[in-house]
């Protein structure tokens, strides 16, 4: 059975200053199976974040349905956790305090259980020894790991990730991708993962969804056949590169149609 069902969801933003509507995404339909890892790629501004926020229950939507385990999403829920692009850690809490934050708010676990889980997930993301550091005292990559630990510790069924590694340098990013896959294999969550990087999507996901330029629609879905566990070397496999290339071409077409259509986004170099 599908864990997550997105059915014909459309979202428009109302631009107060120009008194007009901007369509962000239109008629998006997507199903994610239990334990599946689905990545979404698409040109900038195509409504990926919008879609994720709707699934997270942070954004109201008027058209279509989002269902988790068959139940319509009406707001944030304990069955979901979000890993934001900006780590969004409470700067006045230590790493421990931040990892337990989600569990504290949920109030689902008893105190000793919260302690146990906090310790376990700090270990899982490899941050033991930093329990008492403040977010400002650790690197961006480590902050993102805290962000991930906070989400996982709250025990969601569905993990929603919005370009969680976008701000990291190339090496840290690769390391985090491998870590994420390792953690995902242990925790077996359903994951919806948004990214700009095509090879990140292909490396991580069971399926890669390509969205069209604004208003975002689903343009194509690619099944990624590679067996798991996947080594980082997979990224240099010719079959991997072939899939990456096909997705590239598709997005390139989309980006060109934005530029040709005279959209408001500034032109990206190197089309």
């Amino acid at each position: 059975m599908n864990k997550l069902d997105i059915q014909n969801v459309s979202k428009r933003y109302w631009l107060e200053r120009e008194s007009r509507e901007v369509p962000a995404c239109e008629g998006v339909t997507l199903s994610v199976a239990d334990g599946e890892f689905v990545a979404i790629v698409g040109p900038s501004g195509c409504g990926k974040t919008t879609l994720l926020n709707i699934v997270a229950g942070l954004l109201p939507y008027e058209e279509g349905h989002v269902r988790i385990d068959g139940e319509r999403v009406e707001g944030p829920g304990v069955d979901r956790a979000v890993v934001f692009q900006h780590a969004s850690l409470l700067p006045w809490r230590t790493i421990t305090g931040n990892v337990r934050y989600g569990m504290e708010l949920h109030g689902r676990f008893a105190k000793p259980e919260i302690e146990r889980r906090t310790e376990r997930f700090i270990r899982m993301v490899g941050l033991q020894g930093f329990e008492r550091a403040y977010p400002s005292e650790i690197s961006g990559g480590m902050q993102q790991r805290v962000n991930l630990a906070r989400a996982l510790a709250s025990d969601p069924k569905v993990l929603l990730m919005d370009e969680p590694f976008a701000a990291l340098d190339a090496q840290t990013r690769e390391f985090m991708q491998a870590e994420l896959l390792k953690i995902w294999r242990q925790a077996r969550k359903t994951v919806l993962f948004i990214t700009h990087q095509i090879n990140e999507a292909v490396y991580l996901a069971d399926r890669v969804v390509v969205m069209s330029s604004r208003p975002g629609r689903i343009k194509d879905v690619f099944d990624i056949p590679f067996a798991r566990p996947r080594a980082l070397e997979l990224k240099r496999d010719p079959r991997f590169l072939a899939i990456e290339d096909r997705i590239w071409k598709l997005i390139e077409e989309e980006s060109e149609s934005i530029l040709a259509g005279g959209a408001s986004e500034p032109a990206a170099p190197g089309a």
Partner: protein
Amino acid sequence: MKTETLATTPVKEAPARRTNFYKDHEGMILGGGAVVLVLAAWEAAWQHGRAYSLDAEPMISALFFTGPSAVLGALRETWASGQLPSDLIHSGGNFVVGFTAALAAGVVLGIVIGWFRTVRLLLDPFLNAFYATPRIALVPLIIIMFGIGRLPAIVIVFLSAFFPILINTIVGVKTIDDDLLKAARSFCASHMQIFTTVALPGSVPFILTGVRQGVAHGLIGVVVSEMFVGGEGIGFMIAYSGQTFATERIFLGVAIMAGAGILLTSAAERLQAHFSRWRPER
């Protein structure tokens, strides 16, 4: 796996550091030395000037000027007569009561005003008008309204300290990071939880900035209100000494207020540093 080895070395381990008495107390040594020097020079000039005043043509009149030793003498005298302790208690009481009330009201109202946009828009014109008016200008009005005695003095201290605390608290609540609110909401935080885990801790550094300014303004309030109301207190002592040409007592009062100011502001600063230790070092 470079990152992994990195991850097992604790970040908070203090670096080995040689202690150096001068370096550790540089501020105190230089600052304290300068104060001692200035006081000594002042005393010398005052003694020198007084020696000449035995001549027909005195260079310095004790009416217009005084020296550290004379101020010390005034301190001993007023302390022994019990006048100074009772003035101190009176002024301290005015300050503590007025300031505490200002702190409670400023923080609570500031959070409400900062949090609810509608409340803020409704109150903004009044706040701006009040904030722009020198509160001292209201003193005669307050005396008319609250009569003679302690109450008007306390009200003036309250008004002086209240606005800086209020305004800073509002700014603190208003500038809370949207991303943090979003993260809290994604974990199903209730309004109360958002308030206690995000809004309040996020505004503490701002509240403490307000406290520091409130202390300074409150002390001004103490002096000014007692000058107007009269009867008792350090402010009254300064005003009365002025009328009776007791120059060294004026200096004594000013020195006491300066000392109280330094003490209280540095305490507020220490409190602020304590609550801001999570902030990145600048």
